[in-house]
Structure formats: C-alpha cells, structure tokens
C-alpha cells in the first residue's frame, strides 16, 4: 500500500513550499508540489508610475532582489521599444554576472551540499589523505593538509560541544550518504572557504549598484552610474579596478573548487544521474546582451521538447514572437478563479481558496505553460539549449565538466544524462564557470567602450497616452524570469511576474500534466519514509525560492521541519 509523506518544512511562515509524495515499495509513485502563500504581490503595482516598478519588484524577494529589478526595467523598456546605451548594458550585465556567481556558490555549498555530505563522518577523516586527493584534482592553494585539519577541528569542536547547531537536523548516517570521510572533509572545508568568495561577488554588486542587497543604480532606459574615469564621485577607474580584482579572485574559486567539487561528488553519486529528470521540456531566455538593441547575446535562449537534444528552437531576443505568444497560466489546480489558460498580459489573480485537495486545488502557485506544455527552467535548461544549439562557450565548459565526472565515475556520463537531479547541480556549476569567464569579457567591453569617449548611460523614456505592453525577460540564477506589463497613459494597468519557481513548482494543469518538481520526484528511491533525504535532494537540485514571503521571527520556532507520514 502507498504511504503518503507530507514534507511541510516551516509551518510558521507563510509562503513556503510543501511537498507531498506517495511511496510504494521504497519508491515515489505520486507527488504534489504546493506553495502556501497567495502570490498576488504584483497587485501592489497597479496605478503606479512604471519608472518606479523596479523598486517594488526588487522587494518581492530578498534573495532575488536584483533579478526582479532588472526584469521590471526591461519590461517597461520593451513596452517603449527603448534602446539601452552600451555602457548601461555592460554595467547591468556585470551586476547580473556577479549576482549569479554569488547565488550559485551559496546554493551549492550552503543550501544543498549537506544533502550529499555527511558531517558526522568528518572526524574519522585523514587530513593528509584529503589533501592528496584534493591536489590530484586542482592546484587550489586552500587544499593543504593544514587547511583540512583546521576544518576538521571545527567539526570536532561542534560534535564535542553536544550542540550540533546548524547541523542539528541533517540526515547524518542516512543509508543514501555514500562519501568517504576524506571527501566529506574536503567538501566541508570548501563550504567554509566558499563564504569568503560569495561575499566578494556581493561586494562587486554593491560597488556597481551603489548598494547591496538592493541596488540603486537602475533607471528605465539605462543606469544612473555617472561615468567619469577621473572623478571620485562616479564610476571611475579605481572602482572599475576593484571590481576586476574581485572577479579575478572569484574565478579561480569557481574553476578550481566549485566546479571540481560538484563534478567529483557527481561522479561518486553517479546513480543520481538516473533519477529526477521529470519534465524534459526546457525553456531558457537569451541574456547578457552585447548591443544596445538587444539582438546579440552571450547566453543562448530557446526551448527543447521531450528531452530531444537534436532538436532545439532558439530565441532571437527578449521579445521572441514564439516565446511571447506561447506563454499562458492555468488555475485548475491552483487557488484562483477562472478556468481558461490566460496570457500573462491578460492575467488575473483572484483568489479561490479551498482546502488542500489531491484531486482538486492544492497550491497558490499557478501553472505556467508554454505551447500548452509544462517546462523546466533553470541552469540545466540554459546549458542544454546552449549545448544543443552548438554554442561554443557552453560546449567548452560542459565538455570539461563531463570529462571530469566521467573520470571520477569510471564510466562515460554524457550531456543527455544531465537531465537528472545531479545534472541540475552540475549545470549550475557549469553556468557559474561560464559566468566567471564572461565577467572578464564584459568588464573589458565596458572599459573599451568608455575608452572610445562614450559615457552615455541613459535614454529618456517617454510614455504615450494609449496602451502599451511589455515583457521583461531575464535568465536569472533560478531560470527564466519574465515580468509582463500593461501600461496605460503612463500608469501601470496590469503587471504579472512569471517567476522561475512558478514554472518549476507548478501544480498540475487542466490536462493533468504534472509540474517539474512533481514529475521529477516520481520513481525517486525513498529508503526511510521518516527521513526522506532522497526527495529533498531532488527538490533542492532545482534551487527553489518561494521567499516572496514575510520574514517574521518566531522565538518558539522549534518544530520547524515536519515530516508527516500518513
């Protein structure tokens, strides 16, 4: 008989993700993904000045601040068909690159590595052996025996104190944990080192955006960073050099630590290339524009259906007709009124709450569809679209990663196998290594352009009296983000944000098609229903973000994670 497990992690907070799975004979046979907060936050924008929208959207989520700001200005610029000066494009791109690097590093080390790394095995590790292993992979200076011994001492101290702190709720000793004590130690030492490098990327964002986490330098039409290489108060050579130095410190961390760690862990857990494919339709947006009209990009966008990597459709630009016409949102299984799929420009957000009903409505997340199909978004979608369309940059970084994984695994892991739980982690690390390379390129583009005497940063928006529609697209760290705006007489008439986690956390649609989280959980092994580590691995691999929620502190919040087995 099937057992129903509800994983409802933080019941005190509205707006979190809840996952229900049915387990039969040690494997998931059915699943539901739901979000527990009304997501109609866009209604706050109605009637406002479109030039201010980005300030509000930047507050939708505290982690994805920049990405909502960027999509919002792009949405209004698209409606106005406004060109963006080259300097502004490059400055924005550098912000997006550094934000992405920070986000990917934190996601792997601090939010999901401990799904695979068993902290309590670390005291048994031999730091000398760990160092020898690490040095066989890369030349990273932080891989000395001394560094590993110091990291091991930290774990020993925590274990000896009897207060596990951050490690209280880990699934230590779980049968699905397979790494040797040495590899556990290696990953943990890098977990600590990663803190320093992710912070450098935050610093680079703060210099460019005047502030972090909420950047201040965007305007509809460009940026507000006055450029004068000799003036103290502007974006000058000193600041540009600081940004370059920060990026030059982060790049080796990505190339010599993050990517090799992910590849090594992936090779050692190669069975996780067999689970979690789920929805194999992929959607990605082009990004990092290198011209003022948004026609040339350094990241490739497009879509792939049914996991068929020999057939890829590329998007020309942010407003590709196929993309714009293909997107709808459905609410048959979401707590909203209305039956028909609606285009985001016509989107409605009228609540219709029922209980959680397995066959009825069960989520506050709508079901976005592209050409009527559920789509997976995120770094995996971007990497597969880039690889399938022959993009040299994507191929170079992906092939390098696959070679290393295959060496560790002792068998060939090909690009098609990235369609899996482990593949999502690998794709994110590949994307980070691409971003680290592109950071240097876009810095040079900016400096070279300024050297030509071009200091333009902004084109002035002018709003017509009639109605205009825009879409602001960004390939964010969690995948394709789109903000859809309708502007009437210079005021916002409608605004809909279709965010990456909406695509991935989508509930079923009218045809009963499962969303990506739901589909990816099917056939996952579950060794112990009370400790469903395997389900958590698959969900974490998407890097879910439902944090468009509130932030109330609950001092009694002891029972934060609940796993209910019915």
């Amino acid at each position, binding site marked *: 008989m099937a057992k129903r497990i509800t994983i409802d992690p*933080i019941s005190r907070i509205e707006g979190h993700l809840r996952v229900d799975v049915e387990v039969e004979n040690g494997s998931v046979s059915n699943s539901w993904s739901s979000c527990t907060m009304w997501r109609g936050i866009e209604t706050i924008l109605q009637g406002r000045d479109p030039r201010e929208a980005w300030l509000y959207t930047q*507050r939708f989520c505290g982690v994805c601040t920049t990405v909502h700001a960027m999509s919002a200005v792009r949405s209004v610029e698209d409606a106005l068909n406004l060109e963006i000066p080259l300097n502004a494009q490059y400055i924005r791109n550098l912000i997006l690159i550094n934000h992405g690097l920070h986000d990917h590093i934190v*996601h792997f080390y601090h939010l999901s590595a401990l799904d695979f790394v068993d902290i309590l095995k670390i005291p048994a590790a031999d730091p000398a052996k760990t160092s020898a292993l690490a040095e066989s992979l890369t030349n990273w200076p932080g891989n000395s025996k001394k560094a590993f011994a110091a990291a091991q001492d930290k774990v020993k101290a925590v274990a000896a104190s009897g207060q596990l702190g951050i490690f209280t709720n880990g699934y230590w000793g779980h049968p699905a944990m397979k790494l040797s004590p040495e590899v556990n130690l290696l990953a943990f030492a890098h977990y*600590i080192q990663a803190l320093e490098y992710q912070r450098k990327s935050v610093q680079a964002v703060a210099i460019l955006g005047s502030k972090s986490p909420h950047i201040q330098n965007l305007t509809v039409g460009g940026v507000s960073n006055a450029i004068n290489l000799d003036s103290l108060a502007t974006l000058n050579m000193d600041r540009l050099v600081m940004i370059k130095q920060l990026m030059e410190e982060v790049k080796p961390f990505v190339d010599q630590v993050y990517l090799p760690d992910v590849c090594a862990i992936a090779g050692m857990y190669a069975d996780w290339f067999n689970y979690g494919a789920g929805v194999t339709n992929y959607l990605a947006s082009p990004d990092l524009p290198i011209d003022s009209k948004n026609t040339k990009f350094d990241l490739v966008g497009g879509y792939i259906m049914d996991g068929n990597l020999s057939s890829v459709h590329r998007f020309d630009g942010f407003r590709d007709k196929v993309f714009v016409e293909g997107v709808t949102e459905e609410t048959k299984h979401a707590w909203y009124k209305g039956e028909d799929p609606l285009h985001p420009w016509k989107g409605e957000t009228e609540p219709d709450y029922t209980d959680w009903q397995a066959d009825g409505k069960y989520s506050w997340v709508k079901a976005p569809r592209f050409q009527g199909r559920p789509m997976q978004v995120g770094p995996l979608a971007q990497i597969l679209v880039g690889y399938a369309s022959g993009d040299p940059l994507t191929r170079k970084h992906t092939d390098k990663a696959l070679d290393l994984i295959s060496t560790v695994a002792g068998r060939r892991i090909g690009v098609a196998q990235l369609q899996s739980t482990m593949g999502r982690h690998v794709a994110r690390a590949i994307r980070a290594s691409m971003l680290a390379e592109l950071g240097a390129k876009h810095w040079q583009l900016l400096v070279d352009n300024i050297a030509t005497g071009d200091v333009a940063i902004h084109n002035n928006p002018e709003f017509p009296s009639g109605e205009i529609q825009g879409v602001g697209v960004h390939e964010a760290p969690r995948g394709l983000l789109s903000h859809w705006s309708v502007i009437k007489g210079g005021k916002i008439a409608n605004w809909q944000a279709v965010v990456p986690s909406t695509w991935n956390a989508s509930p079923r649609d009218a045809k009963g098609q499962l969303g990506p989280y739901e589909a990816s959980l099917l056939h996952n092994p579950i060794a112990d229903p009370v400790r469903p580590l395997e389900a958590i691995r698959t969900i974490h691999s998407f890097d879910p973000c439902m*944090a468009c929620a509130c*932030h109330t502190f609950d*001092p009694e919040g002891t029972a934060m*994670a609940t796993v209910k087995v019915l």
Partner: protein
Amino acid sequence: MKKIKICGVGSVLLGDDAVGPYTARWIAANYEFGKGVEVEDLGTPGLDLIAYMTGMDVLILIDSADNREPAGTVTVYDKAAITRQRPAVRLDPHSPCITESIFIAELAGDGPEEVYLIGVTGEQLEIGAPLSDSVRKALPCVVEKVLERVVLHGGSYQKREIPEDAQIWWEEAQISVSV
C-alpha cells in the same frame, strides 16, 4: 573600537513586516553614529545575511516578531534566545534563516560576538499596507533599545540637527525617480 551593525530585516511590501527596514531607515536619517557603527535596510536576505554580519562584533537586528504578545510589544532577544531555534530541514532554502546565518558565520570564525534581535509584534501583514498604529506607536521604544545597545558596546551617536529624508518610499504615493 567594536564594529556594530544595525540591520532592519523584513518585507517592506507586507504591512507590519516592514518595521525592520522602516526603523533602520528612520534611525539612519535621524542619528549620526561614531566610527564602527553602520545601519542598513537588508529586506529579506535569507542566508545572504551571513555576508552582512561577517566581521562584525555586534549585530543588532530589528524585525517583526510572531510571539503571541499584543501587537506593538517590543521584545529584545539575545543570541542565546535567538539560537534556541533549531535550524530546519528546508525545502525552500531561502526562507528566513537568522539562526542558520549566525551558526554558519560562527563556524567560519567570523560571527558576531553579540547578537540582539529587537522584535516588534505585528498586527497585520497585508500586501501594500502601511505600518499599523500599534506598531507605529512602538517605534520610539525600538529606537531606544537599539541606541542603548550601541552605547553598551562602546558605540556613540548624536541626534542630527536637521534630520535627513528617511526615504520610506513604499509608504508614499509618489516618489521621485532621479536620473
């Protein structure tokens, strides 16, 4: 000289959850601090809080609290009280994680020695609503508790003769967009 950071946390779009950012901005506009003291509105940083607390000696957080007290109650929690929360097994890794952030920063050896959370019990979390009257009335008390702790740890402050604009832009109908 100790490094002291005052951080307002919370969503400015959700009614009383804005109390942290609101108060942080108000304090920065009305007070000048001596060396080593910084004030920031961090919004809802999740685990990114680590990046902002690293290297600090004292962290003073201002946040809305869900502690079943009457709306507008101000409660100060110290580090022991905050870290009594057990970290969660998370599905969504970006939810509030003050406790986790403190633990991880400490593990790296960069964590603040002292952490305070000045919690204000909220009344409503309506999208787009301004602060409720009960929370608004509590603001002088919140400011006092923050300043007390700054002084306790050797920081100094002075009231500005002419307050700056606090830029509580989300409560104003119109804001100016500068270019």
